[in-house]
């Protein structure tokens, strides 16, 4: 009895470990762990914090596992168990307060950087001039408008490397979240509100993004690609789109509103009325990334 | 137990509390009031958040007339007083007085509901239906939920009167009257907050 239980417990531990190991092995801890391999400062600082918290949690888990393991091994009920049996021992003057104090200390250690980073990410890096992109989630596609470049795209983005990009997020559909895991965390796109979110790519590449909030039948198709390219290439791309793509008319916009999924599109211009303005009852205050819009081009739109 | 008798020793303990089972029901009713209170709190939160979301509809300041609202307040405060007296009379075993004050409560309550409905009708006849804006939705649902509670209370009072007539003042009917009075006073408290937070503050610029 005793042996059997013990060995099956061990088997279960091993299995858990093996599953973790296997998972990482099968996929080789490769680049597909997008959250673990950020390509920009926002994702980087989020990852740092996550790793820090993970280490703290590993300590907690380890302590509990060890204590629990010892208790189970030492105090099982089998004949001849010589470990002390203390049926009336039910409280302890300093052990009990300890359960409060130690977790409180560990949590303080996590809490301080959490607050710091939360506030830090709410500010754009001061010296840089961001690229502004207005994002509208539609059923079930993404519309990206570049108010300064005066162009628009659907389901794909170009952004310059090394420059913060300020996304203004809204929706003309049920809620979604705008998420490019390689660059950093997500934020909701919601009808009736505009939320600012900034991200930055520090390496050129093509990064995928997706909606994180279920929004109906075509939600699975809301992938989009972010092409991070050098500054000049970005400008060249924008000029090319402006020169070669067709303009977005209101009719074209209304076609985008239809409930369907489509591929990538480019537009050489877009009607201003497709972006909500204050007179429609919107406001720009707030947002996790609460920031003063330091781009006049962007605010002029509202 | 439905024994109305109270022993001499504990004359001062009202029957509805002296009977253990009935007193447990009173505790239970208090707990129910707590859930109702949180329902109203949620509706207040909704209203508070939606207050300025008037879309293309009227603002609180344009919409509300204080006249009917003050009347409603008066009616409800008075009914709260009358039901308080009904409980006092019950504790002095004056069944006829209980009837009288309870009927007064009922009538005042009905007056309240009628005033409220006519107030709503006049708003809606100006086109201010709840479809128009988030603010109006929040307003009608908050105030309407209270009104529905009052209406329910009136029906409850009617069944109470019938039971009192059949059975007189037993531990059970006393407990029922007492919980009814708790309910009614509670609605009065909610109304005071509606009056303050919806109507009066709607008139503050």
């Amino acid at each position, binding site marked *: 009895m005793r042996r059997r239980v013990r060995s099956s417990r061990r088997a279960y531990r091993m299995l858990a470990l093996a599953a973790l190991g296997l998972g990482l092995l099968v996929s080789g801890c490769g680049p597909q762990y997008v959250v673990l391999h950020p390509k920009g400062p926002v994702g980087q600082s989020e990852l740092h914090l996550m790793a820090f918290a993970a280490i703290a949690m590993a300590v907690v888990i380890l302590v509990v596992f060890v204590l629990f393991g010892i208790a189970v091994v030492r105090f099982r009920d089998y004949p001849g168990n010589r470990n002390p049996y203390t049926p009336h021992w039910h409280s302890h003057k300093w052990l009990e307060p300890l359960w409060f104090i130690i977790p409180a200390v560990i949590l303080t250690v996590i809490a301080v950087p959490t607050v710091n980073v939360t506030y830090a990410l709410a500010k754009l890096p001061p010296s840089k001039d961001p690229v502004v992109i207005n994002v509208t989630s539609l059923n079930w596609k993404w519309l990206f408008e570049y108010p300064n470049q005066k162009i628009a795209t659907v389901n794909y983005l170009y952004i310059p490397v090394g420059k913060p990009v300020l996304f203004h997020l809204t929706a003309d559909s049920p809620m979604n979240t705008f998420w490019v895991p390689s660059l950093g965390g997500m934020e909701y796109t919601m009808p009736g509100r505009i939320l600012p979110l900034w991200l930055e790519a520090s390496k050129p590449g093509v990064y995928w993004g997706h909606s994180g909030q279920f929004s109906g039948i075509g939600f699975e198709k809301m992938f989009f690609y972010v092409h991070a390219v050098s500054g000049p290439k970005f400008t060249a791309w924008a000029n090319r789109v402006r020169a070669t793509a067709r303009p977005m008319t209101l009719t074209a916009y209304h076609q985008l509103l239809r409930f369907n999924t489509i591929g990538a599109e480019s537009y050489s211009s877009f009607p201003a009325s497709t972006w909500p303005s204050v007179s429609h009852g919107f406001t720009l205050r707030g947002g996790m990334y609460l920031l003063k819009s330091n781009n006049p081009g962007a605010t002029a739109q509202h | 137990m439905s024994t109305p008798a109270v022993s001499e020793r504990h004359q001062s303990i009202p029957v509805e*509390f002296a009977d253990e089972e009935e007193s447990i029901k009173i505790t239970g009713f*208090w707990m129910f009031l707590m859930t109702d209170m949180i329902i*109203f709190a949620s509706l207040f939160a909704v209203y508070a958040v939606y207050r300025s979301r008037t879309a293309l509809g009227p603002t609180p300041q344009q919409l509300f007339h*204080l006249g009917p609202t003050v009347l409603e307040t008066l009616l409800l405060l008075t009914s709260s*007083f009358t039901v*308080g007296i009904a409980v*006092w009379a019950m504790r002095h075993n004056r069944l006829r007085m209980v009837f009288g004050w309870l009927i007064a409560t009922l009538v005042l309550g009905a007056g309240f509901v009628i005033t409220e409905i006519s107030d709503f009708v006049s708003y809606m006849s100006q086109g201010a239906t709840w479809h128009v804006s988030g603010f109006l939705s929040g307003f009608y649902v908050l105030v309407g939920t209270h009104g529905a509670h009052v209406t329910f209370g009136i029906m409850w009072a009617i069944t109470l009167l019938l039971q009192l007539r059949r059975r007189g003042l037993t531990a059970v009917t006393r407990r029922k009257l007492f919980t009814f009075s708790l309910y009614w006073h509670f609605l009065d408290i909610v109304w005071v907050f509606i009056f303050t*937070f919806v109507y009066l503050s709607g008139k*503050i610029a």
Partner: protein
Amino acid sequence: MSEHTSDGTELEAVEPGLEFLAPKFEVEGFPWAQVMGYVFSLLLTFAALLLVVDHAMPPILLLAVILALALGQAGLQLGVFMHLRESRGTAWQLLPLGLAFFIAFALVGTSIWIMLFKTGVS
């Protein structure tokens, strides 16, 4: 907390440690409390009404004052009319009542706080 007694004469013991919840009964010969309560409730209401109609103070302050008056009114109803300290043993209802008031105000307050940035400018 006691064996069921059918003669209903025993008051239950108050929960040890919760003596502040001891029950209190109010039965008087003439309903003075109710009458005074009624008068005061009218006074409180008209005070609030007058303050608002007169625009006696700056809006924020005014709002705070009339809310305080409403709270006073609530306390009055609870204290005078609702017999809130009555119970067969421990007046248990006081604990959830306190909690409910706290949660109710916290709920409204925090909801406003969380939603604040979204209030439309129309």
